[in-house]
């Protein structure tokens, strides 16, 4: 390091002109061709940075390796039956993950159902309708929503959201929508519905910020063309913007789904942690992430531990697929692919 620092010039911007004019310190010449030592340093530097870059691959590789290796026992013992079994009995050593798969899927889909209209609405408002001064404030506030830790959401869910659901929302739902059989049984507050609502609040910021990115990427000419044809603002948004951003918005939604699938603490705190498959959204459930959170550190026996790690493996694979899909969709819009024709 010291060697090449001597060979190279002083790089602070202020001093370079002085040296170039050659008025001071004639001893310090600037070598036009880098000295050999700095070439060596260059190679070394590039190699070091490459190592840092490769660390990403190594980390993901390690994750896959560890998960596959440590779940061997359960993989061999249960095979595909693991995904369809409904029994989760650590005492007799019978493990089936279906209730957790079900809980993860239902709570995440419920969250999407609530969060997608909200997230896209916020994105449309901030990019297309919002007065300029409010824009920064709004994006700061959604960023804030994203910054609240999961455990704090959970705390709020237990002590504020669940009682509110129990006292007001659930009786109302049971009264007017009870016929759907989705809202049956005693309203505990804690349960699948609470998990869906809290997840929705948590993924709205992701959906809205990525949708916003996508909407901004839609060429301005699309808007101008729609307005020039006499479209109202909403028609402009619908025909000129949303249509072109469709793929990207779907990507944003799927990214939100990816986050919801893996969310742990808040869900664990409000879902009720009961491994069952109940049709009613009032009933407590369990998710893949929360069963790991609750039982992993107390798991006794290799098979039990292995089964939990297999759940983690399944969760990992699902989120990878979901995220890869989402990235591709978002890229297809923001990477500057020519916008599709207005309305065929």
């Amino acid at each position, binding site marked *: 390091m010291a060697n090449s620092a001597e060979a190279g010039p002083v790089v602070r911007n202020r001093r370079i002109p002085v040296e170039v004019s050659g008025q001071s310190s004639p001893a310090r010449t600037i070598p036009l061709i880098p000295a050999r030592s700095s070439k060596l340093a260059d190679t070394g530097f590039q190699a070091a940075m490459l190592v*840092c870059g490769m660390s990403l691959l190594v980390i993901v590789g390690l994750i896959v390796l560890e*998960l596959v290796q440590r779940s061997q026992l359960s993989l061999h013992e249960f095979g595909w039956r693991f995904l369809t079994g409904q029994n989760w009995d650590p005492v007799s050593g019978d493990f089936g993950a279906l209730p957790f798969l079900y809980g993860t899927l239902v709570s995440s889909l419920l969250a999407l159902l609530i969060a997608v209209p909200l997230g896209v609405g916020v994105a449309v408002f901030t990019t297309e309708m919002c007065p300029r001064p409010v824009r920064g404030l709004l994006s700061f506030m959604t960023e*804030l*929503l994203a910054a609240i830790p999961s455990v704090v959401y959970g705390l709020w869910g237990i002590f504020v959201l669940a009682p509110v659901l129990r006292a007001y929302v659930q009786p109302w739902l049971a009264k007017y929508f009870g016929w759907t059989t989705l809202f049956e049984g005693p309203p505990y507050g804690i349960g699948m519905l609470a998990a869906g609502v809290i997840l929705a609040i948590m993924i709205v910021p992701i959906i809205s910020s990525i949708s916003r990115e996508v909407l901004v990427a839609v060429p301005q000419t699309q808007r101008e063309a729609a307005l020039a044809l006499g479209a*109202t603002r909403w028609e402009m948004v619908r025909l000129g913007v949303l249509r072109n951003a469709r793929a990207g918005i779907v990507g944003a939604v799927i990214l939100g789904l990816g986050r919801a699938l893996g969310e742990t*603490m808040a869900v664990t705190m409000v879902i009720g942690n009961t491994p069952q498959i109940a049709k009613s959204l009032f009933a407590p459930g369990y998710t893949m992430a929360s069963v790991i959170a609750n039982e992993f550190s107390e798991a006794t026996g290799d098979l039990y531990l292995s089964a939990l790690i297999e759940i983690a493996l399944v969760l990992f694979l699902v989120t990878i697929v979901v995220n890869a899909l989402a990235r591709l969709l978002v890229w297809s819009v923001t990477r500057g692919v020519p916008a599709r024709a207005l309305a065929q």
Partner: protein
Amino acid sequence: MPSSTPLLPRRFTAWRRVLSDRLATAVAVATVALVLLPLGFILGYLVVRGIGSLNLAFFTHTPVPVGEKGGGVANAIVGSGLILLIASAIGVPLGIGAGIYLAEYGRGRLASLLRFTADVLNGVPSIVVGIVAYALVVLTQKHFSAFSGGIALGIMMVPTITRATEEVLLMVPLAVREAAMGLGIARWRSTLSISLRSASAGVVTGVMLAFARVAGETAPLLFTAFGNQFWNLNPNQPTAALPLQIFIYAISPFDEWHRLAWAGALVLIVMIVGTIAVVRLVARRGLLQGAS
């Protein structure tokens, strides 16, 4: 009338169009209100419930057994600091290095693969990262430690910092690099002292955001740092962390502990929001002051 425009069918009569425009605007405003409502509720509850429990003892004492009044989370705050220090020591250099590689040398297939890997890693659920840290460190050492928790959080910091570093480095104008080359400055030197330095505000922003994100993480610490009721400064021992302590207090059946959970959550939020506010301030001062 010979021809009508195909773009807007007849049902788009003037008043209906104006009405639907107004309606859409109203719906958009309503969604914003619906999203900001929980934010207000959460922050409001945190302040109302939390502030009453904040006192000096909260910051200077360790937790007390059930039934006793008072006590604090001093050890958890310090423990969180310790774990985050370890996490930063791992995540920041790796993340910045990978970002430099992608921005300065990242062309071709390998670079695309690395970018994709960073995005994948960003989406891996934190609990899965926790399990891997458990398998790698805790199982080998046969005990829980702050170190394993730090590794888990460090891993989670890498992709965020990588993408942020790459993004801001790419914003440094090519002319600046060429000027450095023209002066015969070695490439590593120009990367570190000129490109990275001009982009430093942006890099710091990325680092702080990654930091704020992992500071509130609980799931990866459940079976790595594990928690501790007592003081511990040894990175090789189970260590308390503020988010963990909040979780333990929140799911307990005791009112006194619930009170402490709210206070802890308030402290955590103030720390995280404070970090983000600082980041915003730094970012607003101009991302690339040195470069232009």
